[in-house]
């Protein structure tokens, strides 16, 4: 049984100048790359597959399996084309805040993972697509990339192996949809970030219509540790189907919000205990297990194991492990409206249900929030969600419905109250703020 917290990715974050190559090498950095250079690409793929690493960006797809889909036989479709690795660093899902501190404090671990993953899939060109709104992270990534080139970890001859891996740090320009992997590819090709039709899948026709792996930052950054520690070591953390360590991001009405790196399967109750509990006088009202696109849960779910299976069984999704915690001062209608405004703002516009549906949902929620709801509005919301969920082109539309349907499921009364009472009357916003004088019971 592993310890409650298992800092691996975050273990060096407090080190002096932790972001530099020197500091990273001092904590055994780039040793995994040396190991990987002695392995056949297929061996690296098999290692990551056997370790059971699952995508840390939301969907939990097995990383090694994804790598194995890249056609390496020149006879198969796409097999003759160059291969690309793209790191999805477009961390934008509301509540999600793990990749940004990782890249800020420990960019070299990501770069080491990039090189190893590129070797595994035989990619000579990799990209980190980082959202543009995090200037200092972009600086640290570029500096780390430069240092890695200088040290021969990147370039035409990686550590004298004769293997080439080039890396471009690419800053986005403000579009949540670019976290969707095919939209990210279009964006990286200099286009509007709108999702692509699948098939063809990126593994066969991705960037520049060539085989491409797109992985989340945390997934790729976890690879060096797996190479160092091996399959059994990785599997000694986590649960049977959700193996390894991961970053849980605690935020909201808790005493000590922040990053908690633990084996998969920890519960919110344990995390809250570590985080000092809710602020004084506060009771847990609702929380998201993995960002705003994952259906909200309540106090009855405090003991749900936070792994892919556990959260799924509770009717939500592990998502990005972004645990946004809201106490009893919070209006759920206000929160749901704000999230829905976000989806409306970020809808790419490509498909009808998401584009028009989020636009309409906002209007209905606005009047409920203002206490001017109409008879049947709750049913209307649910029916609109039904017409969006599973009807949209990509998962953004689906995600937009999650907070609404789950909130109505748990707090229907509050929505009904929107027929006559503004949310701000029921839940004065001032009481919810960090700087509120006190939390009223």
């Amino acid at each position, binding site marked *: 049984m592993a310890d409650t917290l298992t800092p691996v990715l975050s273990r060096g974050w407090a080190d002096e100048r932790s972001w530099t190559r020197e500091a990273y090498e001092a904590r055994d950095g780039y040793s995994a790359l040396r190991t990987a250079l002695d392995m056949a690409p297929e061996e690296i793929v098999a290692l990551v597959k056997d370790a059971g690493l699952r995508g840390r960006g939301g969907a939990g797809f097995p990383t090694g399996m994804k790598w194995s889909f890249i056609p390496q036989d020149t006879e198969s479709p796409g097999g003759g084309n160059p291969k690309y690795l793209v790191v999805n660093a477009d961390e934008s899902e509301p509540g999600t805040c793990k990749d940004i501190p990782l890249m800020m404090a420990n960019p070299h671990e990501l770069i080491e993972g990039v090189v190893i993953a590129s070797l595994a899939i035989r990619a000579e060109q990799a990209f980190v697509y980082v959202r543009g709104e995090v200037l200092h992270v972009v600086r640290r990534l570029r500096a780390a990339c430069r240092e890695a080139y200088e040290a021969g970890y990147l370039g035409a001859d990686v550590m004298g192996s004769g293997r080439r891996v080039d890396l471009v740090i690419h800053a986005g320009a403000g579009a949540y949809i670019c976290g969707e992997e095919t939209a990210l590819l279009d964006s990286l090709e200099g286009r509007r970030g709108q999702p692509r039709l699948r098939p063809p899948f990126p593994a066969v026709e991705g960037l520049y219509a060539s085989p491409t792996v797109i992985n989340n930052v945390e997934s790729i950054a976890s690879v060096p540790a797996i190479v160092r520690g091996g399959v059994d070591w990785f599997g000694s953390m986590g649960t049977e189907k959700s193996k390894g360590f991961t970053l849980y991001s605690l935020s909201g009405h808790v005493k000590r919000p922040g990053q908690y790196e633990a084996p998969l399967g920890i519960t919110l109750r344990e995390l809250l205990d570590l985080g000092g509990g809710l602020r004084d006088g506060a009771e847990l009202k609702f929380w998201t297990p993995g960002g705003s696109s994952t259906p909200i849960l309540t106090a009855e779910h405090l003991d749900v194991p936070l792994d892919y299976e556990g959260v799924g069984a509770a009717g939500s999704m592990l998502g990005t492990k972004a645990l946004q915690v809201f106490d009893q001062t919070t209006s759920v209608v206000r929160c749901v409206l704000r999230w829905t405004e976000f989806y409306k703002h970020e809808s790419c516009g*490509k498909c009808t249900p998401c584009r028009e549906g989020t636009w309409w949902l906002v*209007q209905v929620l606005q009047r409920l929030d203002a206490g001017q709801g109409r008879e049947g509005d709750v049913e209307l919301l649910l029916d609109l969600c039904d*017409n969006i969920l599973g*009807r949209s*082109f990509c998962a953004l539309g689906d995600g937009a419905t999650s907070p609404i349907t789950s909130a109505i499921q748990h707090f229907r009364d509050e929505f009904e109250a929107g027929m006559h009472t503004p949310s701000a009357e029921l839940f004065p916003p001032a009481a919810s703020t960090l700087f509120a004088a006190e939390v009223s019971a």
Partner: protein
Amino acid sequence: MTVEASRETQTPVDLVTLSIDDVEVSVPKGTLVIRAAELVGTEIPRFCDHPLLEPVGACRQCLVEVPDAGNGRGFPKPQASCTLEVAPGMVVRTQVTSPVAEKAQHGTMELLLVNHPLDCPVCDKGGECPLQNQAMSHGRGESRFAETKRTFPKPLAVSEQVLLDRERCVLCARCTRFSEQVAGDPFIALVERGARQQVGIGPSTDEQAFGDRPGADGSSGGAQPFHSYFSGNTIQICPVGALTSADYRFRSRPFDLVSTPSVAEHDACGAAIRVDHRRGTVMRRLAGDDPEVNEEWVTDKDRFAFTWSRQDDRLRTPLVRDPDTGELVPASWPGALAAAAAGLREAAGKVGVLPGGRLTAEDAYAYSVFARVALRTNDIDFRTRPHSAEEAAFLAARVATVQDVATRDLETASTVLLVGLEPEDEAGTLFLRLRKGSRHGVRVAAVASHTTRGLAKVGGELLTARPGEEASALDAIQDSDGSADVGLDARSVVLLGERLASSPGAFSAAVRLAERTGARLAWVPRRAGDRGAVETGCLPTLLPGARPVGDAEARADLAAAWGVRSVPAKAGRDTTSILRAAARGQLRALVVGGVEVDDLPDPALAREALAAADFVVSLEVRESDVTRAADVVLPVAPPVEKSGTFVTWEGRLRPFGRVLDVPGSLTDVRVLAGIAEELGAPLGFRTTAGAMRSMADLGPWDGERVAAPDLAAPEAKEPRGGEVVLATWRQLVDDGRLQDGQDRYRATARRAVLKASAATLAAAGVEPGDVATISTDLGSASFPTAVADLPDGVVWAPGNNGVHLRGALGADHGSTVRLTAGGAS
């Protein structure tokens, strides 16, 4: 000529069997579910889907339930049937049998209507609107949306011709996908995001005035309006009334219109069109649907240029020159026909015939028979542009009655080689098919002066040839050295443009190339009537059905068919010789069809000839330099007022019916038959149908053909100092008279620019972008300049965009002209 090219390759297809609404259906592998459903009679509602555009799955209107994907597992959510390929054993439930699919479709429809205005009563699309129709058949009765709809300032002029009402747009992206995928002109694009997403042009979506911004073909960047030769197709495929024609806007309601299928008269492609008229006035033209020819696309010229025949200068009554006043005065038909016959009888044996290239096959045939039977001469030539004996031999040997290449072949050829042909300008729907082919792997190369926008859009390789030196360029391709390999083989096609007639040896070299590589040849003329004129023998050395004038057996065959004692045996004069002979008095009379004097190879000689001839009969639709010089003017019907048949560059017959019934509007057939009867030598037919019957009875010649020309390529000529060689052709949108009356359409013309290499411009002291002038002893023309990849010493200028080069300078493709800096002095 034979009826309908039938070159469809029958390759065996793998069939997939699936069940749609409990009906089993077998369709080719790769078929999309939405189209498989059509085969069982189920129309799944759709907006973004279009069979000629790549699937996008954006509108989500066509959702169906798929309880079994063919692998025993179903999709948990409704699927877009426009992006889902069939699979063996797949089970599909559409709105017909699935409440889930029906609800999903209702839901999407409701969302589409949330922001759609209720302006159907004033919308052009009302009555023929897919959104309106499908809202009725697949929508909810009433909307639950009671809030304010999204609005935009209206309308946005994406070009002078195309207007966009953004609030009506359902963002299906058909227009932007057409422009990018089919036309290769992404001048419109989706801009903004989410609920604010809209179609726009750059850089400012609200900019309505284009000012003097350079056009699409201009030298510098800038706000680019939607100046695509194919822009009108977006209006037609718009499933709502978002894109409208500035000309047609608010002009008519679909249910007031009478629609007639027809064929476009503007090029040799034979594009199917639909002509809509109201009470005798054509209101608009649309693309027809013909998978073999134009699929569902036409050029803007085919669509918008239809008012030329109703201009003020339209001839409505016969005119006969009054011997006393010298004025043309109206006459009765019998009187005019008698006058024409009298004048021609007077000049018996010394009459030349210039039918022009715009005729239907039936009308051309009437000219051909009229010349041989009524005038007893072979002095007939349809060619109203530079021509050569080599060309005539080529047409007789390799074009007449030959159907080696069909439009569809451009999708499957290994290589398509263009020689002296700029299809985007000269054969627009052919160009679209070529582009489709190039997007699916067909290699394209061009023997040309430079890389045009059209060549770039088909990813073509340039085999640079100076004008007049196309022959040597052709001889160099895949010759015994194996050099200049562009992959020509038996699956390849070589398309030859009409301006090769002014390039000595080019047709000969093309024939040699075809024989060397096995590639098939086709001749692509510019005009709708050119190929028909070849088929019907409107040439001095060729009789109808590819019968050589020089072949006694062929003449006898023809004489028997026509019921005359003989057909003249002496080879006739070509166009230039006819005009020269008329100017010198060797010919005394001319019968002229639809011919513009400035189009003729030597307009000055033509004017001289018209003046010198004792007697000129003109059969024309509108007043022209010829009618003004004529002694008898016989007004004839434009295509819209008659039936007839165009023959495409492929040799395909494209019959069309009469759209407007205008009493007294006579065909050339009828008029020529009338004169012939007055001359006592009847044609044997008086109607279009009769002419066609006569042609069909005649059939193609099965005897020996004229030998193909085999001229050597000429030596390269170095122009003298200060002189350059001119490369030129007519652009699709230009000052041609068949585009008269369509100012908005004409405003979308590409900017007239003179192109040359940087060195050529520098040698003349011209800064790129500045104005330069080309001149001959006859005249000059000035254009802004742009650098392009022409060989040094060659300039390109448009043939009739601002200045008619042949008319004003007497200059043609291959002519030598002077290049100087600045405007004309």
